[in-house]
Structure formats: C-alpha cells, structure tokens
C-alpha cells in the first residue's frame, strides 16, 4: 500500500488473500485440536495462545497494513503503548485476583 496525499492506494487484493489463507490455517488448527481433544489440556492451551498471537500479527500486517516503512511512526508508538497498557492491565489483574484467590482458599 502506498500513501500519498493522505489516502491509501491499494493496487492488488494479494495481501488480503495471503492474510485470509494464513488466518484460515491459524484458525483451523486450534479448532481442530479442541474438536479432537487428543492433546493434554495444558499443551492445547499453549498452542491456542501462540497461534492467536501469530494470527493477530497476520491481521495487523495483511489486513491493517501495519509495517515499519509506510505506517506513520506515531501510529506505531500508539500501538506499542496500547500493547504495554494491555499487558499491564491483563497481567496485573490476573496476578492480583489469582493471588487473592489462593490466599483465601488455603
């Protein structure tokens, strides 16, 4: 995608098709694993989490066209800041609540 004059120019649907193909694979694997139920619970959860992170990156790259060349720097900074906030809030909430849970159960 090129950006001139504030409007995006997308010449081919190729990135969307690549994104779709990757997303289908990255979705089919975790759904298949849960449907089959053959792997241990812990392993399945880890696979689901890793594939979800990869799929988010695929969506950002091929659907939202985020890259390190054409995307304005301030957009990348805002994205990085949001990722930090999300990690602090989700990680912190779970840490506090499950610590509390274990202390109250013992």
């Amino acid at each position, binding site marked *: 995608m090129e950006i001139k004059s504030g409007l995006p120019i997308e010449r081919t649907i190729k990135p969307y098709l690549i994104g779709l193909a990757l997303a289908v694979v990255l979705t089919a694997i975790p759904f298949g694993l849960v449907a089959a139920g053959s792997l241990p619970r812990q392993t399945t959860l880890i696979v689901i989490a890793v594939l979800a992170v990869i799929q988010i990156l695929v969506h950002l790259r091929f*659907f939202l066209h985020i890259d390190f060349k054409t995307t304005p720097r301030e957009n990348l900074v805002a994205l990085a800041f*949001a990722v930090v906030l999300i990690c602090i809030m989700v990680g912190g909430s*779970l840490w506090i609540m499950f610590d509390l849970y274990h202390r109250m159960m013992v």
Partner: protein
Amino acid sequence: MSSIADMTISPRDAERYEEKDFGFWLYLMSDAVIFACLFATYLVMVGNAAGGPTPKDVFSLERAAAETALLLLSSTTFGVAAVALSAGERGKVLMWLAVTFLLGAGFIVLEFGEFSGMIAEGAGPDRSGFLSAFFTLVGTHGFHVSVGLIWILVMIGQVFFKGLTAPVASRLMRLGLFWHFLDIIWVVIFSVVYLPGLM
C-alpha cells in the same frame, strides 16, 4: 471515474485526512484497552459458575467456527472493496460493501440466536459471574459489529449518492480499520472464551 491515485488533493486536505486517520487510530487503541479490561474480567470470573451452567454447557464449537468464518470472510471482502476503491470502480465498491454487510449481518444473526437461546435456557447474564462477564465481553464486541454494519450502510449510501470523492474514500479507509480491528478482537474471543471453554 478517476482512480484515487490520480485524484488531486490540496496539501491542506491531505493533512486533514492524515490527522483524522491518526485520531481514529488512537480511538481504536483505546478501544483495545477497553476490551483488554473485559478479557481480564472474564478470565477472573470464568470459574465462578455459581452452580449454574459452565462454559462447556452453553458454548457450541460449530457455532463459534461459523461465526469466525463469517467475520474472517467479511474482513477479506472489505479488502476487495478497498482495492476497488483505489481503482475508482464504484460499482465494485458498492457490491463488495454489500457482501461485507451480509456476512457481518450473518454473524450478528448467529450471535443473537446464541444469546437468546442461552437466556431462554436460564443461562442469562444474571445467572452467574461467569455469564455476566461472558455477556459483557461478547456483547460489547457484538455491539461494535452492529455499529460497523450501520456504518457500512451509511457508506454504501455515500458511495451511491456522492460517488468516490476524496472525503468518502477517507471515511471508507477508517471504516476498514474499524472492521479489521473487530476481527482481531474476535480472534482473541474465540481463543480465550470459546476454545478453552469447550476443552
């Protein structure tokens, strides 16, 4: 119809579009933070079924897969509309926006059926902490998709009546960001809510 590449836009307008895109991007990032809070709440509450239905009792793998497929396909068809927009092909833009709308509407119909079925079975948001958190999280996403559908209708109207002008193209680009963003949230929903719930 000239393509977006040949459009002449004054530097001042170009700057305004870039500012709007950045502002919208900041909104999306803060929306992501809201969803992160709802995900954290869900993860804390998911074990608290209060003797009522557990995730395994109320979720369906087939329905979650169908909802995922509809949303992913609609993201791709929006991309096709964006490419048609760059080429200045108004008819194609209208057609692919309509296809995107139908796929998104199909998603909402499935989700509405899921929610009303759960409420009818006594698994409504007032049943347990798990269900309150579930309806808040997935309902907030569904609300966003519904707003996106209204936005698609508005843009179909604008493309139809105003044509592919620079302001319309700029709005369609932001609608695309919104629509693809909702698909990312859905990836996290099926990875955090449906798949672990059905194991």
